[in-house]
């Protein structure tokens, strides 16, 4: 058995690394995924910027990226990680494939959330002479906010799961700790401790997401 204080020391840095990876990757993936999702929504049949060619290309691209297992995507993106971060191993290097791997998923999440906005509302603002940009930025996205927040919660937890997987091929963080100590060195207690921290993180993220969604609902008197 590893003594408790040693165990805590072992966990501190990997937990920090995981938090860093997940936070930065979620932010970057959101910045990539939001325009992607809005484009999917706007260019679909009947959308405010209907364009079946653009939609079909984006739709296929998203499906292709999403069908790649994350581990494979990470290997494929090694060269890109090297260009951006200068290395292919460690916490920073993992942020690159994590961000890119999660953005098509976030694109879909955004697309679904926006599709929940009633057509009648869009028609009403069209009748007021709103431009396509105004419809998307001032109406559709704010109206879809609760759905966007709960979708992002789902995506962040997904990214946390991927980040743990990245430990298998040289990423940092809690997944890396679990594999190196728990698997390669047969220290099962370290493995269990890492898993417990990951579970706690997931709980926190889900709780915060639910709380935020609830606050929006209550404010808008939707529930």
């Amino acid at each position, binding site marked *: 058995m590893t003594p408790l204080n040693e165990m805590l020391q072992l966990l501190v840095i990997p937990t920090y690394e995981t938090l860093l990876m997940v936070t930065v990757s979620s932010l970057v993936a959101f910045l990539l995924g939001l325009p992607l999702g809005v484009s999917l929504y706007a260019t679909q049949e009947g959308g405010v910027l209907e364009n079946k060619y653009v939609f079909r290309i984006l739709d296929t691209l998203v499906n292709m990226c999403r069908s790649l297992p994350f581990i494979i995507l990470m290997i494929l993106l090694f060269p890109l990680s090297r260009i951006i971060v200068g290395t292919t191993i460690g916490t920073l290097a993992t942020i690159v494939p994590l961000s890119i791997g999660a953005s098509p998923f976030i694109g879909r999440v955004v697309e679904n959330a926006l599709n929940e906005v*009633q057509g*009648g*509302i869009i028609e009403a*603002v069209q*009748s*007021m002479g709103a*431009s396509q940009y105004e419809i998307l930025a*001032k109406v559709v996205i704010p109206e879809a906010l609760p759905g966007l927040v709960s979708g992002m919660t789902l995506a962040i937890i997904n990214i946390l799961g991927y980040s743990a997987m990245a430990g298998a091929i040289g990423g940092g963080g809690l997944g890396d700790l679990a594999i190196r100590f728990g698997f390669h060195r047969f220290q099962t207690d370290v493995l269990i401790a890492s898993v417990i921290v990951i579970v706690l993180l997931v709980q926190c993220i889900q709780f915060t997401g639910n709380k935020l969604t609830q606050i929006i609902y209550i404010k808008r008197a939707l529930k």
Partner: protein
Amino acid sequence: MISIKQITKTYGCGESEVKALNGVSLEIAKGEIYGVIGLSGAGKSTLIRTLNRLEEIDGGDISIDNVDVNNLTPARLRAQRKKIGMIFQHFHLLSSRTVEGNIAFPLEISGWSKKDIKTRVSRLLDLVGLPDKALVYPNQLSGGQKQRVAIARAIANEPALLLSDEATSALDPITTRSILSLLKKINRDLGLTVVLITHEMDVIEHICDKVAVMENGQVIEEGLVVDVIKNPQSHVTKAFLSGKKSEVNLHDAS
């Protein structure tokens, strides 16, 4: 003010083809409250939606204040729409904005300053009788209050024309009366032309100056409301009037 000439609109093709509008012509004068009545599927909803081009027509001409509605660039169309207010059966208010924010929306997209918006919104809230609801979200309001907000939003930009698409159909009779009175007041005080569609003869009788009766995509009867009620020609008009009477009888009996 509005001149509609022989407009047509067809949905689908082949056997499932439906002629929603089959050669409709109407003249609507400035300051009038013009009602279009018909059963579901008569084409009245399609007709009103062609006026701000939420619906495109296949043939014919529409001109509003001498502007050819169907020959506008996208930018000109948006400018044109800013001069036409519209209200709907299900209100279509933004749940993400307060009452104040909803009424401010058309002003924001027309480039009004924050200060001017504030004054204008509070004046509109007074006009529709909701001065204390500025900071409330739409879902906290009753149906009648929501429609009042929608009316304030529709006339915020001082349009010359207001389109009402079954605006009282989701409301109870008493609320319907109060909304109709509000529309009448706006029409009188602001000189706004109102085009409304409905399937309730009561609405026509209560506030309209002129009426057109539609069936199968065509106008089958048209004229001053007083004349049409006194001397109905078509079977549809007669049915609407007698349907109303039997409703009244039911009320008396109970």
